[in-house]
Every structure is written in structure tokens, then in C-alpha cells.
């Protein structure tokens, strides 16, 4: 019986933790919406009205009038915000100020393309980062190790529009392996995904290099070695498993960066996914679309982070101990 009480205490505290984390995640999403809404909609000079009434706006006047009514710009900013929030809850993200199309449709259309691109780029990013980190930590030659260790910084430093263009020049224009304009299914995703992976892998690679380096110095490696376990098995089986765990917390960040990086990459590769929708909406100052894109990407980030945070203790048992004792270390975080 006493044991049961103890474990139910623990599940209760775990449940409280989960509830608190979910609450935090929702709060962050709500704050993102609020802050971006007020940044974009309530600027001096009525950006939405200006946009809709501009003679250069391709939107026909009739549709513009309908949108003016829809956005109720005569209301106070807070009333507008309340209206917008009410619609958001019902899944209504408003309409594009340029095409008049529902924002939900634009996002759905863009996402269907970009999800594939991001997924492929994600796989490539993880593969690339692992390769870089393993080389940087375990390569037998010192010069190769330091070369690999500098790759993350190099990839952060290379403007992705330049990388994308170089890839296009070599593989599309010179070798003709893949079309630069036509949709050839999965093959068309490869070059943009490689460009994205190069742009995004830097932070992950670096954390992996740090993690592996640290794990390699742990006492258990000496123990394994003393037991006669081969270096390869130590590296791939044990060090990697231990050293890669901290990198899991980067997933949210990577997902967010992949979607943001798509803006530049899709421009270079003439793709029409979410990045293109974003690029167009920023160029046209199409505020409802920008708001929706930001909300979508940050929601993705928050969700992935929430999931990794909740799963993290299961991946790394040391974390549980650390949370138990670690409260002292990060007391303010616990309050927050």
C-alpha cells in the first residue's frame, strides 16, 4: 500500500507537470498570436485599409469592400483583436488582402508541398549532422576531425541562396539530372532539401559534436574498452546513444528553421510551397497571411518542443534524477 501511494504521488506530480507544460505551450501560442496581431494590424496608417484601397491592389474593388467589412477596421484595435480571436477559434484565418482567397486554403496548398520538402530536408539534416559529428569525433586523422568540426560553422556562414544556386547550376543546368522548373515528383525535392539541410544543420551538428565529445570522455567508455568492446561498437553503439540524446531537444528548433529557410530556398528553386506563400505575402504586405504563417510555424515549434520535453525523460533516465534534484539548480524555471 505505501508503495502504491508513493507511485500515485509520482504520477500525480507527473500529471501536474504535463498539464503545466501543455498550459505553457498554449500560452506561448496565444502570446505569439497576440503580439504578431498587434504588430501587424494596429500600426499607424492602417496597413490593412491602405492595402485594400490602393489602386494597385489586384483585388477587385468589390472584393476589397467585402474584406473591409470583414475586417471591421472601424472597431477599436482590441475589438478587432477579439473578433479575430473568435474567428481563429473557429478555424477562420481570414482572407488574403491580395488574392481574396481564404488564408486557410493558401496555407493548406503551401503546406502540402513544403511538408514533403521539410520532411526530406529533416532526414538529410539529421543524416548530415550525424556524419559530421561522427567524423569530427571519431575520425582517425586529426586534420579530418578538425575539418569536420569546422563544417557546422561553414554551413551557417554560407548564404543559402548561393548554395541553392550553385546546386542548380551543377545538377540542373550542367548535368541536367533534375529539372529546374518542372515538377518531377520526389526528385524535384532533392536539391532544395539539400540546400535546406546545409542551411539548417549547423546548430544540430554542433550540439552533436559537443554531446559525442562529452560522452566519449565518460568513464563508461573506459569500462567498455577494458571489457574489450571494439572501438566501432563503442562509438556507434554506446557513445552515440548517450551523446545524441541532448540533440533531441533541438528538434523543435530544426523544424522551425526548416520552414523559415523554405522562404529563401523555394524562391531560388521556383517552388510554390509555404515559403513561397510567405515570400509573396511579405512582398505584398498581406498581413492576414503573414500572421497565419507565423502562427503556424510557431505552433509547430511549440508542439514539437512540448512532445520532446515530455518524452525526454523517457529517452534519458538521468533527466528524471536531474529534475528531482535539479529543481535547486533551476528554481525559477520551476516557478515559471
Amino acid at each position, binding site marked *: 500500500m505505501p508503495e502504491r501511494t508513493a507511485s500515485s504521488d509520482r504520477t500525480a506530480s507527473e500529471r501536474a507537470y504535463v498539464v503545466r507544460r501543455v498550459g*505553457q505551450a498554449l*500560452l*506561448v*501560442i496565444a*502570446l*505569439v498570436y497576440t*503580439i*504578431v496581431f498587434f*504588430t*501587424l494590424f494596429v*500600426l499607424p496608417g492602417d496597413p490593412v485599409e491602405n492595402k485594400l484601397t490602393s489602386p494597385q491592389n489586384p483585388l477587385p474593388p468589390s472584393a476589397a469592400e467585402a474584406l473591409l467589412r470583414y475586417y471591421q477596421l472601424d472597431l477599436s484595435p482590441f475589438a478587432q483583436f477579439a473578433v479575430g480571436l473568435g474567428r481563429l477559434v473557429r478555424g477562420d484565418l481570414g482572407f488574403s488582402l491580395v488574392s481574396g482567397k481564404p488564408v486557410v486554403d493558401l496555407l493548406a496548398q503551401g503546406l502540402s508541398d513544403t511538408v514533403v520538402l521539410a520532411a526530406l530536408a529533416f532526414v538529410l539534416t539529421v543524416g548530415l549532422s550525424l556524419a559530421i559529428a561522427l567524423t569530427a569525433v571519431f575520425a582517425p586523422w586529426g586534420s579530418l576531425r578538425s575539418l569536420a568540426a*569546422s563544417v557546422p*560553422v*561553414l554551413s*551557417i*556562414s*554560407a*548564404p*543559402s*541562396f*548561393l548554395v541553392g*544556386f550553385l546546386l542548380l547550376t551543377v545538377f540542373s543546368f550542367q548535368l541536367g539530372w533534375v529539372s529546374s522548373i518542372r515538377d518531377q515528383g520526389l526528385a524535384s525535392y532533392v536539391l532544395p532539401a539539400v540546400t535546406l539541410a546545409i542551411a539548417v544543420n549547423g*546548430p544540430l551538428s*554542433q*550540439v552533436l559534436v*559537443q554531446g559525442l565529445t562529452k560522452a566519449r570522455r565518460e568513464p563508461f567508455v573506459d569500462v567498455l574498452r577494458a571489457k574489450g568492446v571494439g572501438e566501432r561498437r563503442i562509438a556507434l553503439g554506446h557513445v552515440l546513444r548517450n551523446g545524441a540524446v541532448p540533440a533531441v*531537444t*533541438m528538434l*523543435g*528548433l530544426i523544424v*522551425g528553421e526548416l*520552414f*523559415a*529557410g523554405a*522562404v*529563401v530556398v523555394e524562391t531560388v528553386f521556383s517552388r510554390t510551397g509555404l515559403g513561397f506563400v*510567405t*515570400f509573396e505575402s*511579405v*512582398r505584398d504586405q498581406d498581413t492576414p497571411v*503573414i500572421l497565419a*504563417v*507565423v502562427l503556424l*510555424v*510557431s505552433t509547430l*515549434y*511549440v508542439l514539437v*518542443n512540448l512532445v*520532446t*520535453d515530455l518524452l*525526454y525523460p523517457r529517452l534519458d533516465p538521468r533527466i528524471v534524477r536531474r*529534475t528531482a534534484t535539479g529543481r535547486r*539548480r*533551476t*528554481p*525559477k*524555471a*520551476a*516557478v*515559471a
Partner: protein
Amino acid sequence: MSTLTTSPGPSPAAARRPAERWSAPPEAGSFRALVARLGPLDHVALAVVAFLVLAVVAPGLLTSHDPLHGDGTLVLQAPSAAHWFGTDYLGRDLFSRIVHGTVRTLLGSAVAVVIGLGVGTLLGLVAGYLGGVVDAVISRLVDVLLSIPGLLLSMVVVVALGFGALNAAVAVGIASIAAFTRLMRSEVLTVKDLPFVEASHHLGGSRAHVLLRHILPNSWTAVLSLTALQFGLSIIWISSLSFLGYGAPPPLPEWGLLVAEGREYVVSSPWLTIVPGAVIAASVLAISRLSRTIKEGSAA
């Protein structure tokens, strides 16, 4: 655990470092120790940075060509002895444009870093030191900023402020606030509990005094490292914004703009794109390298 403490930030430097390193005496991160540790790559990086500084302070020493006024008869010339990086579509010397563009480019990054560093560090100090509700509010704000990828956040700010070089820099600065806040907050939290800080508290040091006397000197290497890294990242971000057409207007030679302009001529004159792109990469690489050296040094 909140997002704040578990997930590493957009920059590796912001990743949480073990508290144990603070057991080392603070002098380990001193400037002299830093210089002693420089390797050959660091020297190359230093040379690049020195070149950048020279280009900012005295561009006239590096090139005698006018960056704004071209020779109409020498349009789109390939790199040569007279024009090291070739000439652009108006016959302007590209090397000169890059050298003279350094000020504007680095100034943009500096504005961004000053905003990020200033606002971010202040928020982090306040959050870490005061704790409680203040910390909770600031932490959520940081979560919000972190949840929007930097480039996307910059684009939102640029839409709000309007297009232009300064606005792009401010946008990038705002996007980098979170990284500094998070770093500073964790620095404060780790340092706050160190015995000598607590001791100084007990000895009756005022809050501000303790803060200035102990926390800031203890954190400077970490902050400096992040500052250098963010400086490099700002160059990339601002150039991305310029690439997308949200940055500086011509004819002022900003690096990102140079790359963006060059794209239209890339088939006949690839140097117009590749050279400024390589200069951006080399500068960021050099600055990041130094940032890493600073950090590793202090962690050793």
C-alpha cells in the same frame, strides 16, 4: 522544466553549459589567456577581422576606386589586375564596392547585435535576478520570440516597420533578443548560487552591487562569444533580407544587396554574385571561429 532551460537556442553558443565550469577561477577567461590559446586558424580569422576593421576605418587605404561612380566603358569586366573582383553593370569596381560596403554591412549587424545584446542581456539579468513573476513573464516572452524562427520574425518586423537597411537591422536585432536573454538568465542563475556571490550577499552587498561586481564579470566570455556569433549570423540574416528585397536601396553597396543584384547577371558575370557571397561567408566564418575560441577557452 520549461522550454527555457531544456532546448538549446538558435545558436550553439546559447546551449546550456554545465555549471561545473564555474568552479574554475574567473581569471581563466581573461584576455591574456585567450591570446595565448590562439591557433593558426585563429590567426587567419584575426587577419580577416583586421581587414574588416581596416575596411571600416579607412577604406581609402585598401582601394582607390570610387565605389559609386563607374567607368561606363568597363561594364561587367571579369576580375583582372586592375579590378581584382571585376566590375559591375555600371562599370563600378566590385572590390571597391565590397570594401566601401563593409561599413554599411557591419553597421547593420552592429545595430542588430546592440539591440539584441542590450535588450536581451537586460531582460536576462532582470529575469534571473528578480525571479518570480518577472521571470515568468520574461520567460514566456522569450519563449514567444524563440518559437518564431529568426528569419520569419525579422520578416514580420520588416513588414511592420517598412523596408530599408536600418529596419532590416532592427528586425534582425529583435529576432536575436531571445538568445541573449536566455544566456544571460542562465548565467545569472548559475552564478547567483555560487558561494562567493552568496557570501558577498551576506556581507551586505546591495543587489545592484552584487550584480555588477560578480555576475557580469563572470559572464563576459559567454556573452562575448554569443555576441560574436550573433554578429556573424546578423550578416547572414540581413543579407537574406536583402536577397529577398527587403533591405538597403542601391547604390549603397551593402553585401547582401551586392549578391542580390549580381544574381541577374550570374550567367555572364558570375563573380558579381560569388565574390560578395564568399566575402560574407569568410567574414561570418572568421567571426564565428573567434567566437568559438573565446567560448572553448573559457570552458577549458
